[in-house]
Each structure stands twice: as C-alpha cells, then as structure tokens.
C-alpha cells in the first residue's frame, strides 16, 4: 500500500505536527506513514482522509 499523505499535506499547507495533532497521533506516526513503513488502522486512515476532505482511496492506494 502506498499513500499520498505528503502530497495532500503540501496542498493543505500542513506540517506533520499539524496533521498529527488533528488526527490524534504522534508526529512519529505521520513520519512512518509517509515513509511507507507503517500501514494505518482503518480508523486512522479514515481520520486522515477526512482531514483532507477526500475519500480514503484517494489518499491510500492499495496495490492489487
């Protein structure tokens, strides 16, 4: 699974800290997500997508 968190963050002019605070996780978790070292829970994925006002599949791309 890949994601476009960094891209959306830039679009919304958000720092990793801002996003972490908004979705209630540590900044480190956002770093891990952006590096592709961690796949989030469904709830966190939903919260992140909601923060960017898009559907989950627009932020997280599932490889077939």
């Amino acid at each position, binding site marked *: *699974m890949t994601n476009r968190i960094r891209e959306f963050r830039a679009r919304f002019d958000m720092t990793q*800290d801002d996003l*972490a*605070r908004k979705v*209630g*996780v*540590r*900044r*480190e*978790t956002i770093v*891990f997500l952006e*590096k*592709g*070292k*961690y*796949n*989030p*829970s469904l709830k*966190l994925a939903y919260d992140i997508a909601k923060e960017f006002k898009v559907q989950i599949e627009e932020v997280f791309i599932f490889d077939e």
Partner: protein
Amino acid sequence: MKKTIVIFVVAGLVLVSFILWILNTSMSWDLREILMILAGLILAGFAVYFGFKRAKSFARKEPAEDELSKMIMTRASSFSYYISIYLWLFIMYISDKTKWETHTLIGTGILGMAVIFLFSWLGVRFFGLKND
C-alpha cells in the same frame, strides 16, 4: 505523565543497584562481568531515553502512546519472547557445561531477555510495520 515518572524511577533504581553491586562485590572484571555491566547500562540508558521521549510528547501535547507505538511494542514483545525461548534453551545447555551458579544463570537469562527486547524494539522501529 505518571508512567514517565515511573520509567525514570525504574531507570534510577537499576543504575543505583548496578553501582551498589559494583562497589560491594569483589569483581574480577572478567568478560562476563564487563558484559553484564554494559548490558545493564545500555538498558538503563534505554529507559532514560524512553522516559525523555514520553516527556517530550507530553510537552508537545501529543499522546504519549498511539496505535503505532503500541503496535511496535506488541510486535517487539512477541518477537523477543520467541527469541528468548532459544536463549533459555542455550542457558540450559551451558548450565551443564559450565560451573556457573544458578543465580548467575538466572540473572544472565533475565538480562539477556531485556537486551533481546531492546534489540527487537530497535529492529521493528528500523524496519517498520508493513502489516499488509
């Protein structure tokens, strides 16, 4: 914050115990004793690092634990448990081959488990958790 204080207290107790142990025993400073002291210092250092990490999170008003940190802890625990079984098998094997006392073997095993957990935690953090 309470948990952070507990971590600092435990790290302090480990350090004090090690200092007392070094001062009150006639140490031969052989490789085994040096390794045990090093392992103890590394573990205490790790606990202090862990405490500072939590305190930093507290200061930044972010959660001290979240789904990633909990998952890293769970994965590191299960992996280190698996490896520890082999450590204890090895200790059982060397207990027949050496003249180490029982309390030394148990102490080595406990310290070994802690070191294995530390390296498992570092490994999981380094390689990440691609749970797909």
